[in-house]
């Protein structure tokens, strides 16, 4: 249930292309505490596999990955 997750910060990456969304996501995660969550909004369809790959490489956990209209929404938790 995405509603019950506390979001620490929201990143608006709508209209941005690779590499900016991932760079901004990485920076945002560095700015919060372990266990806290960043919400990222993006419109680049490449961000869907990219956020997944980011999880695979960094271990930060995707709590939600969904699409609402033309906008992709991700919830990513800092794990370390």
């Amino acid at each position, binding site marked *: 249930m995405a509603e019950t997750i506390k979001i620490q910060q929201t990143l608006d990456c709508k209209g941005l*292309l690779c590499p*900016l969304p991932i*760079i901004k*996501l990485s920076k945002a995660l560095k700015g919060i505490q372990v266990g806290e969550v960043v919400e990222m909004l993006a419109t680049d369809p490449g961000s869907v596999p990219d956020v997944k790959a*980011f999880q695979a*490489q*960094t*271990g930060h956990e995707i709590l939600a990955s969904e699409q609402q209209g033309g906008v992709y929404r991700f919830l990513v938790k800092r794990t370390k």
Partner: protein
Amino acid sequence: MGEKTKRLAMVASKGTLDQAYPPLILATTAAAMGWEVGIFFTFYGLDILHKKRLEHLQVSPVGNPAMPPPIPAIPMLKVPTLMGALPGMTAMATTMMKGWMAKAKMPSVKELVDLCVEGDVQLFACATTMGVMGITQEDLIPQAQCAGATTFLDYAASADVSLFI
């Protein structure tokens, strides 16, 4: 996680506007994932670290059949390659590409280099290129480290991903 930090080693050998982007995009992305990244800038690729040139990289329409048609509605009507050699065509193609980049909110080459510096990407400046082209350390951004092929190979020997661009 007790895993070893991953390492990306790249050679950036081209100094045109279009070819400057791929190594910088890969480098900034890998750095964002916590990887160690080193780029060896060699031959014209060294212009990417050149203080005076890095904001003036150009894209050439000569010998580049991928250049888009001037009228998007007529995709088969390409600019003849020969016309690319006319005065002003390189400037025009460069302005056009910079326009697409700005419209897509893409960072400039300078901004990507700054992001590399921020992400602790090692920027190796090929010593041979510096010697051949008369480029000194003062001509380059302060983070450029003059190094030879041996240094790069030593760095790349323990890389997980190595690319030549």
